[in-house]
């Protein structure tokens, strides 16, 4: 064999080895079965496809957990992993799922709202495929996902995404972003079906309020905040003022812009009677000028480049050597959800929702997130859900 051919064959083998190795890792990541533990408050479990048949049998279908109290009352829907690369949302939702006991009203939790996005990654940014949370009984492993649904589940992307029904022109990528496809439609793209199913859930179940939990860059102004439209701004503002006064952390209110379509905090309110809220906690991992996107950065939020920028007042949140740890972010989310519930219940006593056994900010910061997850070995198998 001539020397030139030998080199070509060797190069092909190297490329094939890289493709196969990465392909196996990505295949395993996409099919990794993450454990969801239903706590004592869970009364029934549905699939999102029960509200839009077009999701049945697809990777976008996902579990919907109902926690119904003994007394009738209002209903709150919690959406997590709308963006699956903002995992404090998932961790907060799982604390509710494993611990919450509803005394009055109903909690509905969708921990992996963009289930396809949770099986996607961002190789160009070198995202880790998994991360682990320490608990007293070992580690709990999670899939690290991406902002958008996997192109394996929704393809091709259009040149320009035309939002339905407003016809606003959005980035082509946002057609796979479940925070741009609200209110959705039953015969649209797969992610439009996901948001349509959630709208149907809210309409048929008569959900009073929906909280969509996110994380945002420290260099982005809409961070560390509650985003709410006009009809929900009063509850959001009282929640923000109370959290600052009673729990000592900032969570300012951002009005939902009426001219920017497709977002949960805009369309849910416009297309249903539900009051929408979107929570943002600072997530240094998402910022662009950071070091490598490691699990450590994801969990402790410490980065020397952000620290340098903070000293030049380039960030929108306070930032020092302590970073912005996961337990702070999850704690903020849990407290914000509980306070939204309290403020809503004060103003609408006939639709009040009372939840107990969910920790607040100080407890989660002190004990860590893993403290609130239960050992699956001690849980009845019927309460374990794999996804």
């Amino acid at each position: 064999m001539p020397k030139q051919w030998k080199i070509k064959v060797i190069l092909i083998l190297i490329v094939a080895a890289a493709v196969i190795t990465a392909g196996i890792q990505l295949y395993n990541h996409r099919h990794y079965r993450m454990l969801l533990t239903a706590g004592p408050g869970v009364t029934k479990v549905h699939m999102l496809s029960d509200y839009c048949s077009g999701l049945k049998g697809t990777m976008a279908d996902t579990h919907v957990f109902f926690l119904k109290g003994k007394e009738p009352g209002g209903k709150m829907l919690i959406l997590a992993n709308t963006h699956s690369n903002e995992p404090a949302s998932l961790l907060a939702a799982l604390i509710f799922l494993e611990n919450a006991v509803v005394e009055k009203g109903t909690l509905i939790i969708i921990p992996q709202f963009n289930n396809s996005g949770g099986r996607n990654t961002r190789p160009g940014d070198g995202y880790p495929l998994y991360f682990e949370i320490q608990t007293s009984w070992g580690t709990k492993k999670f899939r690290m996902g991406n902002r958008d649904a996997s192109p394996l589940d929704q393809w091709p992307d259009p040149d320009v995404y035309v939002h339905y029904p407003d016809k606003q022109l959005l980035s082509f990528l946002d057609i796979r972003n479940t925070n741009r496809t609200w209110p959705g439609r039953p015969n649209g793209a797969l992610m439009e079906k996901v948001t349509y199913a959630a709208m149907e859930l809210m309409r048929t179940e008569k959900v009073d309020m929906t909280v969509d939990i996110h994380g945002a860059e420290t260099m982005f102004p809409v961070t560390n905040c509650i985003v709410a439209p006009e009809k929900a701004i009063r509850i959001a503002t009282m929640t923000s003022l109370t959290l600052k006064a009673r729990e000592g952390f900032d969570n300012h209110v951002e009005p939902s812009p009426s001219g920017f379509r497709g977002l949960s905090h805009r369309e849910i309110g416009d297309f249903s009677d539900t009051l929408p809220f979107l929570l943002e906690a600072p997530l240094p991992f998402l910022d662009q000028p950071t070091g490598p996107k490691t699990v450590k950065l994801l969990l402790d939020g410490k980065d020397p480049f952000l620290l340098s920028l903070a000293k030049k007042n380039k960030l929108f949140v306070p930032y020092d050597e302590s970073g912005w740890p996961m337990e702070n972010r999850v704690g903020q989310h849990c407290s914000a959800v509980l306070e939204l519930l309290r403020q809503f219940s004060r103003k609408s006593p006939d639709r009040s929702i009372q939840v107990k056994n969910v920790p607040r900010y100080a407890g989660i910061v002190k004990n860590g997130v893993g403290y609130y997850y239960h050992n699956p070995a001690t849980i009845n198998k019927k309460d374990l859900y794999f996804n």
Partner: protein
Amino acid sequence: MKKITRTAFYTVITCGFILYLALPVGAEEIPKAKYPILTTSAGQSPDVTTVNIVCEEAEIKYDYCDVPDIEILSAGVGLAGKESGEGFHSEVHSDLEKFPAGTPYKTMIIAIGASLKGMGASGLTVNDEVNRLKKIIDYCKDNEIFIIGVHVGGVSKRGAQGSDNEKMIDAVAPFTDYLIVTNDSNKDGRFTDIAAEKNIPLTEIEFALNLVEILQQVFTE
């Protein structure tokens, strides 16, 4: 007899000390103001929404206009029937049985804080806003309308000398009859200095939520 006098003396001292501790940080005597009330913004930041919601929480009825001019202000309760539209927001929550449409306002609460986005939405430049404020403050002075300046935006609604936020403070704070500010907003003592120089009562509160109890005291007859 001596013993009773001494007991009474210590009781008064102890009660006084407890009352002192119960007062908000930096509190002086809290002045009284009268209904009807108009709330508005100096700088069009969302802090006026906070003030409105705090009023509702305190069960204080008010009218709201984001950019009132003299015509609207002088029309009194009901804001001359002007309805919200692009770049203009009005709400009427006053008790119309007690204060029918047209009743002159007795108090104006101004939320101080600049937002270029907010001013842009109202079609105002910083100078337009300052000029508008000057006119309505002059009207209030001429018509004995009590002005309460509120700054609860903290450091995010402060800035370097001459910045938009500081221009709003310059335009309003020295001309108020009462100032309520959060500790964060007054870290550099700017409001303390203005209050001292102009002899304006100042209440410093730790959190914006404390505004509820302060406004309740201001409007309790």
